[in-house]
């Protein structure tokens, strides 16, 4: 099948392109990108005039919940949420039931994704068996089966020796170890520790709960030579540690979520559990540090940490509510409106952080519009206005602190292998 995406502003950071061009798709791959391409015989034309054509966005931190927690989300609903949110590929975390700590579960996820999924799904394998932090999972087989990284996300591997061994053992597979950096002894509070937690009387977890683990893991990455990726970085101190480590040449990368870029712990004053997640929303200084690091490249990518739950798990008392909010369908609109529109972040940099960045650090095929690449494409409409209405989400999860937010700029069309999966 041939398609021609005509007249859009093509932003392809991998090739340094930012110009009005046409994109010719043949047999699911990028065939040619250039100005004024003639419509090939039999090709369908997509008029992208006034739109922005980007390499497909990749969310490297998603909880798809299947197998085991299909009442929260399924591969079918989660990938549809991803497509609607402008993502052409997602990496899914291992804390399913059973845990994705062996080849059979990885195979199952990939098989379900082939049948039910509408975007590319890349499983992330567990570091330790059953996420218990006591024994290595079978990392070699998981890598063979297609896991693109290893992480016990949701839990921190507290045993430093075991984590060191995991980093070493994973070296031959060339995939990162992703750290959920949260010291579970220091970090058991319901929200960020600060003035707001003091006023609200909620137990607080200090920024140090994250920072001591980021520091430990950077030191272990230095020891082992492994590629460490810090998930959902959220504090000024963590940012400083990553920046220093990168300057020393340590193989460390990091991601940040939209909510840690846009909200502070002030919003918890409502005791609304849609403001509860791990790591918790931090203070103003932390938000500023994360933004600065996203701009200067200390933080390599934006990932949503899409963590859907059933309503019953989120509607009660704050301290008892489950951690996690959905993010796939709000991330791109929020980033376009709150960061790109006011000029905090330029569009090509945002596209880098959403496509090229995650593709490179997970060694994935996407992230560019180079000829021969799969035609995974996200097209944006910077003028489209929106209001966040959880009732319209494709995700089964509805819990978001952004409900009712309005803005301008949203995904317009999502193509995977040249096929439109959302528009």
């Amino acid at each position: 099948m041939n398609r021609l995406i005509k007249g859009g502003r093509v932003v392809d950071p991998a090739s340094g392109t930012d110009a009005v061009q046409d994109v010719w798709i043949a047999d699911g791959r990028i065939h040619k990108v250039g100005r004024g391409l003639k419509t090939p015989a039999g090709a369908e034309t997509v008029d992208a005039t006034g739109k922005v054509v980007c390499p497909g966005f990749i969310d490297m931190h998603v909880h798809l919940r299947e197998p085991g927690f299909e009442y929260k989300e399924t591969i079918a609903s989660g990938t549809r949420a991803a497509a609607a949110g402008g993502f052409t590929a997602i990496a899914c975390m291992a804390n399913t039931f059973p845990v994705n700590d062996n080849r059979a579960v990885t195979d199952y996820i990939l098989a379900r994704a082939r049948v039910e999924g509408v975007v590319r799904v890349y499983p992330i394998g567990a570091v330790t068996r059953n996420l218990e932090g006591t024994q290595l999972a079978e990392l070699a087989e998981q890598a063979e089966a297609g896991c693109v990284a290893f992480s016990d996300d949701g839990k921190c591997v507290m045993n430093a020796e075991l984590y060191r061994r995991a980093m070493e053992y994973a070296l031959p597979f060339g995939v990162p170890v992703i750290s959920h950096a949260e010291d579970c002894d220091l970090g058991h509070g319901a929200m960020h520790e600060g003035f707001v937690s003091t006023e609200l009387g909620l137990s607080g977890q200090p920024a140090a709960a994250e920072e001591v683990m980021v520091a430990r893991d950077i030191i272990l990455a230095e020891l082992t030579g492994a590629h460490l990726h810090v998930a959902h970085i959220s504090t000024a101190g963590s940012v400083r540690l990553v920046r220093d480590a990168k300057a020393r040449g340590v193989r460390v990368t990091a991601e940040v979520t939209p909510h840690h870029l846009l909200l502070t712990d002030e919003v918890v004053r409502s005791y609304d559990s849609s403001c509860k997640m791990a790591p918790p929303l931090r203070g103003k200084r932390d938000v500023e540090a994360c933004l600065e690091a996203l701009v200067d490249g200390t933080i390599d990518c934006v990932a949503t940490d899409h963590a859907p739950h059933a309503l019953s798990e989120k509607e009660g008392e704050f301290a008892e509510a489950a951690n996690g909010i959905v993010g796939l369908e709000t991330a791109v609109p929020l980033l376009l409106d709150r960061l790109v529109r006011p000029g905090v972040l330029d569009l090509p940099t945002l596209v880098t952080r959403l496509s090229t960045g995650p593709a490179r650090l997970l060694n994935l095929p996407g992230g560019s519009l180079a000829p021969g690449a799969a035609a995974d494409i996200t097209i944006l409409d910077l003028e489209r206005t929106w209001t966040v209405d959880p009732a319209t989400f494709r995700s089964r999860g509805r819990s978001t602190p952004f409900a009712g937010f309005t803005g301008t700029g949203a995904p317009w069309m999502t193509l995977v292998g040249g096929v439109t999966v959302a528009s």
Partner: protein
Amino acid sequence: MSWKRKDLLGMQDLDAAEIIGVLDTASSMKEIAAREIKKVPTLRGKTVVNLFYESSTRTRTSFEIAGKWLSADVINFSASGSSADKGESLLDTARNIEAMSPDVVVVRHKAAGAPALLARHLRCGVVNAGDGAHEHPTQALLDLMTIREKKGHLEGLNVTIVGDITHSRVARSDIYGMRKMGITVTVAGPPTLIPAQCQELGVKVSHRLEEAIAHADVIMMLRLQHERMQGGFIPSLREYSRVWGLSLAKLEHCRPDVLIMHPGPVNRGVELAPEVADSPYSVILDQVANGVAVRMAVLYMLAGSKGA
């Protein structure tokens, strides 16, 4: 005075005029306790539900007596453990109670914010009788009433709150209420029991008991939960009691007219030496008596002033 609120969730919400309004109403209610027949018809036909998710003797009894003296029908609904343990969510319980058409629900819950959650979902009035480490507004009101009774005024006084500030809803409500009434508040305790950025609440923070109580008009001693050793907050009750317990010897350097208060129940020999608890400085039982008056005032203001 005019009371416009549906709920009483915390001292943080009230302004000085509202606080004075409650105290004045409570003072006029207090006379009922001295009557031979302790009953007025003010809330006849009104229903007050005590919804207590945490064990409490004093506060629940106090609300119960307050309601009964005002002729309200008072129903005690004790839910042991968390709502999750019971299998029924807090909101479901609340909706069930709402279906029985109460006028006021008095709620105590271990989760900070639980009364606010109920207040959002219930049409009737909600009184926070203590939520986690957040607020306990009727305790702060009865503390203010007791201080005003004994000292004749509130403005300009020095109050020192001693002990586990981090986990104390009483400390927070007292701080908010006292600051609004022009009281200078000092909190004192080991640094492990002082919450993050505590000074931003508008209080002085001291880590030395003797210094913190030297000029105090009122010393509020907080109960120390025995399990605080487990979290590493203190090494032992013995050491806590030696360093932070109030003994007669430590009182010697205080003002001669100092008041000793405690929200109860007292750990005798831990935060308060028995001789201090029973000394003439202690107004702990006045606090309890005023608790009933304050709760009568609050129930009246929430249930009585509208439909009546």
